[in-house]
């Protein structure tokens, strides 16, 4: 029997799911190898158990907590996909504001009707077997992960940085053009697509293991970035990771 693959989506732009639909060349081969169940965006079919559940999006409401727990109980493997699910992503910017403020700002007098929680990663709520980073995920990594899971090949996170990939691509470094970039401490895997297209890495794949925050802050400060600018760079996608540490470090290192 073909393994059952399911897709679920929580608070997100659904871009990662779309990225899977964008595998136009491979989609039919994938359908040969697996049975796709629960892919609300594309199909009606639903199942009650799955071999691999791909979960997109951050967890931001009490219902989502229950739903994602339910998915965990029905799935053999859970793979969190995308910056929202793995890091909190852009959603995590919300956590920098007091929750009441956020709610009032949007719902005004109706604020109390809409439960919203501080943004959480999927991994904060349930056990996740693998995290596929990126905003959006890359098609290449989705294929690699799916093939590996089907063949039972263990998955490992990439250890090298975006700079490694960016240099390998032969790009002119953004710092040489007077721009800034946090690719040096960001986990590789996207083939440095942003620097390749002339835009500084925004860190959507999360930080490498043991990132040198102090060094990176220093580099940005040396290029004339102000404290709020540096903070914005670090909290684009990685708000949850740095929310506690980064303010102090910026204070300490940016004179």
């Amino acid at each position, binding site marked *: 029997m073909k393994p059952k693959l399911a897709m679920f989506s929580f608070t997100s732009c659904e871009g990662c799911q779309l990225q899977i639909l964008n595998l136009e060349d*491979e989609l039919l*081969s*994938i359908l040969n*190898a697996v049975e796709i169940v629960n892919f609300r965006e594309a199909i009606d079919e639903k199942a009650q158990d799955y071999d691999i559940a791909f979960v997109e999006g951050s967890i931001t409401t009490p219902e989502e907590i229950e739903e994602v727990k339910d998915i965990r109980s029905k799935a053999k493997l859970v793979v969190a996909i995308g910056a929202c699910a793995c890091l909190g992503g852009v959603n995590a910017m919300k956590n920098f504001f007091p929750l009441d403020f956020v709610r009032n700002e949007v719902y005004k007098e109706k604020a109390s009707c809409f439960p919203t929680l501080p943004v959480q990663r999927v991994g904060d709520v349930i056990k996740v077997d693998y995290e596929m980073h990126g905003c959006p995920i890359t098609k290449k990594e989705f*294929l*690699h992960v799916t*093939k*590996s899971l*089907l*063949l039972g*090949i263990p998955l490992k996170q990439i*250890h*090298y*940085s*975006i*700079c*490694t990939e*960016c*240099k*390998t691509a*032969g*790009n*002119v*470094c953004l*710092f*040489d*053009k007077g721009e800034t*970039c946090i*690719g*040096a*401490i960001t986990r590789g895997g996207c083939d440095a697509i942003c620097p390749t297209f002339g835009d500084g890495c925004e860190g959507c794949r999360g930080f*490498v*293991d*043991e990132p*040198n925050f*102090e*060094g*990176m802050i*220093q*580099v940005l400060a*040396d290029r004339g970035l102000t404290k709020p600018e540096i903070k914005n760079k670090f909290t684009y996608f990685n708000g949850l990771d740095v929310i506690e540490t980064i303010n102090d470090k910026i204070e300490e290192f940016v004179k």
Partner: protein
Amino acid sequence: MKIYFLPKDKVKLLVESVLDEFQVFGAKAKEMKFEFGKIDTAAELRLDYNTTILPPVKTFFPNDEKILEFKPNGQTTSVHENSKKVLFGVHPCDIHAIEMMDNIFSTPPEDKHYLERRKDSIIIGINCNTPCSDKILCYDKGTYKADSGFDLMFWDNGESYLVEVVTSLGNFLASKFSYFFNFFTEYSGDFHEFKSEYHKRQDFVFEKKLTRKISELPEAMRQSYESELWHEVGAKCLSCGSCNIVCPTCYCFDVKDVVDIDLAGGHRCRNWDSCQNLDFACVGSGENFREKSSQRNRHRVFKKEVYLPQNKGYSGCVGCGRCNTACIAGISLIDIYNNVFSEEV
């Protein structure tokens, strides 16, 4: 050895005819910098470049190089590429780097993948009139000039180039395109004199960057093993790996398997790796033999300036300055070397 005389306005014609017969690789503009890559039209090729982002030698040691193929029937075959290439316009430092990599990959057990790519390739060097940046060490290292490692060498002679032909491959190329070279007969002047004049001009514009002689470096470096310097460098370093990737003499790699979409076949390939990555020296049991950034930085520099000189008799750095330019944290070998020199008593 033969010396020809080639007017500069004939270069384009020459490149065009070489392009008809060979795959040509050379420097071409990339935004405000230069990249070393495949040349499609003669107009693309630039001989007036300063330095290329990635070095020419990576033509023979490409990233993501397929080394094995796994067929669905279980058969495994080795994959090699050997098409005759012309590297047109390689600077002396990069020629030194190619020589070094030739040596590394042909030291038994030899690496056929590199050697096959390298085999039959023709290297056309071009000397540097001026230093390409202030981050280079080629003058200290003596790598701003090359005596071997090329088949042809272009020497700037104002309105023309003197073309030095040194190898049989070079001769082969020169005679194949003799039409251009024959435009002007062999150079009649005294080439030795020309050369020494040329180098004298270089002496004038190239700058010494180190406080002491390069020959003293390995020993001074060895002394610095426990130096505080490495902790300072380690604190600045972002472990991004840029320095390794752009280096013409870094050849560490990782090997990985890629499975085809049909899950039956696939290939094994090697990718450039960086000794600055956290997991570079991590083993199965979880032990990391260079867990600190300071240790990894020291290893990079020691490999070039202590271990290779000790094992091979040559330095693993040709002073091209690429790593110094690539480092956004501002770590520079020039500073490191001078620090090492000033520390040692």
